[in-house]
């Protein structure tokens, strides 16, 4: 299944990180949550953020999209430092980023079609162009039949898929996923992961995926979408890994505790990391 839109992704220059965190700190009244986080995600790379509840995975995603500002340190997105720029400038940068919220965060008073079309309406896209684009994106997530439904009529998994459709309607070069499979049954989780795989392998988006499910990360590392057969298949060959690299970041006590490939994580003798593998 293909998806063609007129929007062109704005990738950073070759060799430049799509997302870069440099010694980022963030705290609230209850204490400091992020204590000097440094990492970068290259173009087309998928970073899987692993960590226990409350370690700041969602905060990292919100910092990457400028929804939160760091207390100190720098966050660069597509080559721009977004740490201290005004909200009005951030609104423009956020249009380059798709954000899939944990519970979907769909506008409950709008239909599925209106939710997906929201960004296009905001951008003043010709109304005649909107419906075909929305239908196309909904077909991509296999929910074309829900066009006129309200979010309350959908299951949890369907809402996440609509949220993914909404995030990709403008073909952003970066997509952030906040625990997209949390609270879903294994089969629905697999559907969501397949969708993320297709998005990555067909459009080459850079992704940050926060999750506490290790199997989601391994699925992204070991499976790829084949556009010719239009099927997701197991492929952990070096060529595929180079084309769509996947790395793991493990957060612990407000810092990056581990950063490396799926193999590095599997082979690590660290007792804390071993707990994720059980």
């Amino acid at each position, binding site marked *: 299944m293909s998806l063609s839109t007129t929007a062109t992704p704005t990738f950073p220059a070759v060799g430049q990180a799509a997302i870069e965190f440099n010694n980022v700190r963030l705290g609230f009244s209850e204490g400091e949550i992020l204590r000097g986080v440094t990492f970068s995600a290259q173009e087309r790379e998928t970073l899987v953020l692993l960590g226990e509840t409350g370690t700041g995975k969602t905060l990292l995603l919100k910092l990457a999209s400028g929804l939160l500002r760091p207390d100190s340190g720098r966050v660069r997105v597509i080559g721009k430092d977004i740490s201290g720029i005004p909200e009005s400038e951030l609104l423009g940068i956020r249009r380059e980023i798709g*954000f899939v*919220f944990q519970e979907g*965060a769909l506008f409950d008073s709008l239909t599925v079609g209106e939710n997906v079309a929201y960004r296009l309406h*905001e951008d003043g896209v010709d109304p005649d162009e909107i419906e075909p684009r929305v239908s196309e994106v909904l077909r991509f997530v296999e929910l074309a039949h829900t066009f006129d439904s309200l979010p309350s009529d959908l299951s949890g998994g369907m809402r996440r898929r609509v949220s993914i459709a909404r995030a990709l309607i403008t073909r952003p070069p970066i997509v952030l996923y906040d625990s997209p499979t949390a609270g879903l049954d294994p089969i629905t989780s697999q559907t969501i992961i397949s969708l993320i795989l297709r998005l990555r392998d067909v459009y080459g988006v850079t992704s940050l995926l926060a999750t506490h499910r290790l199997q989601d990360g391994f699925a992204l590392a070991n499976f790829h979408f084949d556009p010719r057969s239009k099927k997701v298949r197991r492929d952990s060959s070096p060529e595929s890994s180079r084309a769509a690299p996947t790395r793991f970041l493990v957060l612990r006590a407000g810092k990056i505790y581990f950063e490396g490939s799926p193999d590095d994580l599997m082979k690590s003798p660290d007792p804390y990391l071993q707990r994720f593998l059980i």
Partner: protein
Amino acid sequence: MEVLQDLAKTNILKIQNYSILSYHSLTNLARGPRYGQDTLDQMDIIGVGSLPIVLLSGFFIGAVMVLQTGAQFIRFGQASLTGDIVSLALVRELGPSITGLLVAGRCASGIASELGSMQVTEQVDAMRAMGTDPSRKLVTPRVLATLITLPLLTTISVFVGLLGGMVASVLSLRINATTFWERAIKILEFSDIMQGFMKTVVFAFIIATVGCYQGLNVRGGTQGVGRATTQAVVVASVLIIVSDTFLTKIALYLADKLF
């Protein structure tokens, strides 16, 4: 001491955030994007939606005013003055403040609960993540809609209040309807109408901005939405009553100097 300092800081921060929200709600009008359809929708919800309670309460407030004041005027043989007093009270004071309080009860709570629900379900964050400024999309249409509809609602309330007063004076005080109506209209001066209008504009701004502020600053899930809704009504009502005193003083001073 530290607790007091924290309390002071928290409250100053709240006032600062409320002021910024209020400031942006107005400055957004100068620059696009503008959300005309959202403003019309809100005018329907706030204005048309509040009409039944405003009509009903306005009518009976006018009637009860006549019953209360008429009884006193009859003692002095000046029953015909009832129309004058009821008219002045409704236009200057009771119309704006009662309508303001009714709309605060209905709409400040509605705005707070709607925006609060959006906040706790991350819909506001989703909006920001998609490049939309919630202040433009959510706050300004509600403020503008309230600023337009509350003066209209108050005008309707005053008119219906005078009708209620007229009915009560005819049935209870046996005053001629024409006499009541003529005196009620004749007593009014431009400054009286301006005083009432000035109050409705300020009250409308308070209702909308307090509702939006409470809604967008919800913390603590659905329980927080409930708290914000109650807070919105309480704060808006208290601010209306307190500001009414100062506005009355200002209006009387201006009327004295200008008219």
